């Protein structure tokens, strides 16, 4: 898979420690930390180990032994937290999806108009994936290799996106069939899946214009979708595609907070006088 960036160095699943030092292992001996904090930290380290291990060698090849070695917890501790490898995977999956959905929902709810909200949500979605290639691989690809319970989780997670899209029905010129949101989401999934498999996760934010065309097309038709596409292409040209692709990672900020994961700001045309938030720094 070429050179992949790892997002587990930042300890995404590990609660932020009390200092800025590397958040991996807790100090040995007496440390005055609460039992809960220790447990949470252990659990987080195991989850981080799972994410890293699954990204490196795939779920089927990942052994509990690997997770123990990587996280530095004892076997006993591992089994205190998780019944088995699958449980551990499901916990990491749930945590990842919850981080992702927090970012997407926050972006979506900042906007009033549906098209703006979808654009913001989609940009947040793609930005999150690009910023967290290991979590992305786990959620998009490896989830298929785990079993029925993971697949049920995946289906539920995918359905979580229907809500954002279905709001577009109100703006549609005619009634749309019930499965439109499912079709749009499934199409997005396939495209993301293909890029992740080919090791192009970091390029995903560049697809925003074309994916917005797809999201808008069934609801508002080709003409509106093309206008959106052209506008986004133009503004990404202005911003410089490289900057979009790099997302928010260039500043070296750690990624522990779901709300900060909105890497790609929604690019606005400024054409609607009524919109609330102004002055995205890159556009001005």
């Amino acid at each position, binding site marked *: 898979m070429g050179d992949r960036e790892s997002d587990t160095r930042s300890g995404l699943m590990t609660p932020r420690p009390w200092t800025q030092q590397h958040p991996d292992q807790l100090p040995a001996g007496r440390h005055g930390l609460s039992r809960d904090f220790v447990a949470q930290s252990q659990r987080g380290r195991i989850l981080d180990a799972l994410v890293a291990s699954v990204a490196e060698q795939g779920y089927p090849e990942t052994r509990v032994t690997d997770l123990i070695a990587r996280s530095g917890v004892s076997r006993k501790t591992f089994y205190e937290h998780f019944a088995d490898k699958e449980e551990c995977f499901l916990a990491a999956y749930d945590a990842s999806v919850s981080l992702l959905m927090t970012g997407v929902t926050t972006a979506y709810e900042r906007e009033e108009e549906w098209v703006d909200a979808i654009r913001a949500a989609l940009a947040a979605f793609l930005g999150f994936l690009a910023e967290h290639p290991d979590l992305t691989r786990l959620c998009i690809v490896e989830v298929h290799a785990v079993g029925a319970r993971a697949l049920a989780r995946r289906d539920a997670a995918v359905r979580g996106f229907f809500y954002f899209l279905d709001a577009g029905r109100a703006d549609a010129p005619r009634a749309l*069939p019930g*499965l439109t949101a*499912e*079709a*749009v989401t499934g*199409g997005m999934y396939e495209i993301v899946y293909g890029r992740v498999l080919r090791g192009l996760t970091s390029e995903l934010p560049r697809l925003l*214009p074309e994916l917005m065309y*797809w999201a808008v097309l*069934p609801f508002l038709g080709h003409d509106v979708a*093309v206008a959106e596409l052209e506008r986004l292409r133009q503004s990404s040209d202005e911003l410089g595609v490289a900057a979009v692709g790099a997302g928010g990672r260039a500043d070296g900020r750690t990624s522990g907070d779901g709300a900060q994961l909105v890497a790609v700001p929604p690019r606005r045309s400024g054409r609607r006088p009524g919109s609330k938030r102004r002055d995205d720094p890159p556009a001005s």
Partner: protein
Amino acid sequence: MQFLVVKGEVTHYPRAMQMTPVDDNPDTHDLSPEDFSLWAKKNRFFRAMAAAVARAGYGETAVADILREAGMSRRTFYELFEDREDCFLQAFDAALERVRALVGAAYHEAGEWVDLRGRVELGLGAFLGCCASEPELARMCIVEVLAAGQRARERRDAAVLEFASFIEHPRAEARGAAAPSLVSEAIAGGIYGIVYARIARGETATLPGLLAELMDSGLGQLVDGGDG
């Protein structure tokens, strides 16, 4: 023999609207008796595999189950296939070839008589019809293919991309450069996802009834008004 062009290749196509061959399948008319016998044996294994996999899933299906289902000997199986995976992949390829021909025929055959949207609808309808008429094969090729290992996964990925490249024809005809190519991939993936979910839930028979809804969920908006 009639011909049609799919992606620049001339392919002859059968008329029977089924994914697996029947005895009067015109595909087999040019075969020598030896080749026909080989073809018939393989198809018997393909069907048996689809039936066994539909019952127990690919992971739980052993070669012995396929033999029992087919009523054929282990020796014959290993004359034709290297192993279980090889049988699966060959069955997948054979089914895909048939679907490709049937969908291509439905799309092209109507010619000038039907507008672009109508032709796309005929093609998609043919695909949904294939799934409904062969539910076991459909389950094997669309759902179980994800559980059958790396090579099977790659076959599925390639098939979805081929489906997308097929949608590229009407997309280009209707919208030219205005609509991005990526939308064809999105449409193919969206339809795959919907078909996958229905088959996984055991609702394969409902697929042909979803034609109008699938058309109105993006594909129709893409090709509408593209008959200039």
